[in-house]
């Protein structure tokens, strides 16, 4: 390892600072960006703006929740964007039977893709990045085979799901928050959560300890698939259109960024759902801030790249401990 070439151990103070950065940096980042916007951005503090930002972040967050599970198991799920595309295609095809049937088909679709990912990883022993990469390519194609072009979605139930709210909180945000609570509970308070972290920490050790490693991995990827399918369903409701060509493009990158920036190490064994939520919000705020100050979208990408590297650098110090 590079340990051999580094040789010097970092000073204690620096380590402490970095650890603090990793644990609370993302919240601090959100706070700083909020403060900056409140002071310097016109029309930032308005219910309408908060609503817009929150609705935009909801699908990313839902996908990131599944990604956090996959990364916590020392894996990754690159197929999430394609699963979103598949779910928007399935949604359009089955909406004629009613929104509930369509939702059911969409969830089953996401679960099937997740199961395929999980089976390749758990039973065949393929590296997660390769398995989900293959599915990413194939599933996007499948989505386009099912629905070759953009189709508008005209359904009153879908319309109200995408546009309406309860007491000022949009449905999409409520659903995303609810799912975050469920996943956080799953990770923190259940046997499955503890087993998942054990698998992510060291798969051989988990195997020796007699944990059902394969079943855990399958569940992780099925969950990730289902969450991505839900995100695709909700994104379609918000846009009132099915666009399998572009829906979910680069979503895997946004989700990975949210998870990693939120302090979940890529090396597995640790999942921070609160951090993931804050990470998704941070990226959304960063983009919004740059756009509102008339900086071109290209800057957003560069800024995102810098944030990713800084976050992972901080996480690296923790990983060594």
């Amino acid at each position, binding site marked *: *390892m*590079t*340990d*051999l*070439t*580094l040789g010097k151990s970092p000073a204690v103070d620096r380590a402490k600072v970095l650890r603090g950065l990793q644990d609370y940096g993302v919240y601090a980042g959100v706070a700083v960006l909020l403060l900056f916007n409140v002071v310097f951005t016109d029309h930032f503090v308005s219910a309408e703006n908060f609503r817009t930002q929150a609705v935009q972040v909801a699908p990313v967050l839902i996908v990131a929740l599944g990604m956090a599970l996959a990364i916590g198991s020392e894996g*990754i799920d690159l197929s999430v964007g394609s699963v979103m595309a598949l779910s928007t295609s399935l949604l359009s095809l089955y909406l004629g039977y009613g929104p509930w049937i369509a939702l059911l088909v969409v969830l089953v679709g996401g679960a099937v893709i997740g199961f395929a990912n999980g089976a*390749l990883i758990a039973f*065949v*022993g*393929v*590296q997660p*990045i*390769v*398995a989900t*990469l*293959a*599915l*990413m*390519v*194939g*599933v*996007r*194609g*499948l989505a*386009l*085979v099912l629905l*070759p072009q953009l189709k508008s979605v005209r359904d009153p139930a879908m319309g109200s799901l995408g546009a309406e709210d309860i007491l000022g909180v949009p449905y999409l945000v409520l659903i995303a928050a609810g799912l975050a609570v469920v996943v956080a509970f799953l990770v923190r308070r259940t046997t499955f959560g503890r087993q998942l972290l054990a698998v992510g920490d060291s798969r051989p050790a988990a195997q020796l300890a007699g944990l059902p490693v394969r079943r855990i991995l399958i569940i992780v990827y099925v969950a990730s698939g289902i969450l991505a399918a839900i995100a695709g369903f909700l994104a379609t409701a918000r846009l009132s259109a099915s666009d399998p060509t572009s829906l979910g*493009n680069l979503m895997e*990158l946004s989700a*990975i960024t949210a998870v*990693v920036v939120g302090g979940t190490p*890529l090396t597995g064994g640790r999942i921070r759902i609160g951090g993931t939520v804050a990470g998704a919000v941070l990226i959304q705020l960063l983009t919004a801030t740059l756009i509102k100050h008339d900086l*071109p*979208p*290209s*800057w*957003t*990408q*560069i800024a*995102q*790249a*810098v944030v*990713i*590297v800084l976050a*992972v*650098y901080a996480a*690296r110090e923790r990983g060594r401990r």
Partner: protein
Amino acid sequence: MPAKPVEEPTGPTRGERLSALAQQHGALVALVVLAAVASLSFDSFATSANLEPMAMSATFLAVIALGMTFVIITGGIDLSVGSVFVLGGVLAAWGSQYGTLVALLLPLVVCGLIGLVHGLLIARTGLAPFIVTLAGMLAARGIMLSITDEGATTYLVDKDAYLAQLGQGKLLGFGVPIWITVALFAAGAVVLRRTRFGQNVYAVGGNEDAAALMGAPVARTKIKVYVLSALLAGLAGILNAAWLTSGVTILGYGLELEAIAAVVIGGTLLSGGLGFVSGSLVGVLLLKVIQNIINQIGTLDSAYQQVVSGGFLVLVIIAQTWLGRRRKVF
């Protein structure tokens, strides 16, 4: 003294030797079979009017896959190649107004620097290649967008410039980029098999700790492969811009995945330590032949192409994992 990298373990059984053969040359067998079936099924397949454009469109991916092969053999990955490819093309087209030398050097310098940053971050700070090159992918695309007015400006290459001739010229009936690609692959094979650097690439991918203990320059080798990968991606961009006589800004999405797929299909293990450049060339050709066949069938659109490519990739990696299991523990 590192042993010859892909030498068989001592006393392989017949089964092991067969599985190794299948893993190394399975893609070649598949390519030959597919090409034979295609030329029997479609009269238009084995014509130079079909093969030459197919080879030409394969060159850009092939040049990128060559660099990716080195990176993957060290056990790393480079997700930035699609963005670097586009950036290289745009810089070449922009630079061509100041002469051919600028058009060639500017993209290579910029792309090389991006590769250097990747390499330094990965080798010196121990960050995961996946994340570093992911960030590089965003940054390179961001730089490209910012020099093209958010993708609105397309720089053109003067059709009489040397650069355009490099892309569009023909030699013995084949386009110049095809010859360049063949030469690059020959050089790549020599570098990987016959040089100290090539040995280090295998050693780092085989077992990093052991390589370091044996005195292989682990960090320097890693830095070099990421610079190499970025340089080749930039060069592919230059060739593409020369061929199209413009720096098209909307290309390159998903190219990194295609390149990785080609390398993996070609028998290089993603876990590192094992692989060879000719396999990657075969992998690229295989992907292109599949695409071509699907185009020939006509009734199938490009969506099926993706389904077939994805399905094929799944089959290949299942086969590879099973065949490779005996030789390499993940």
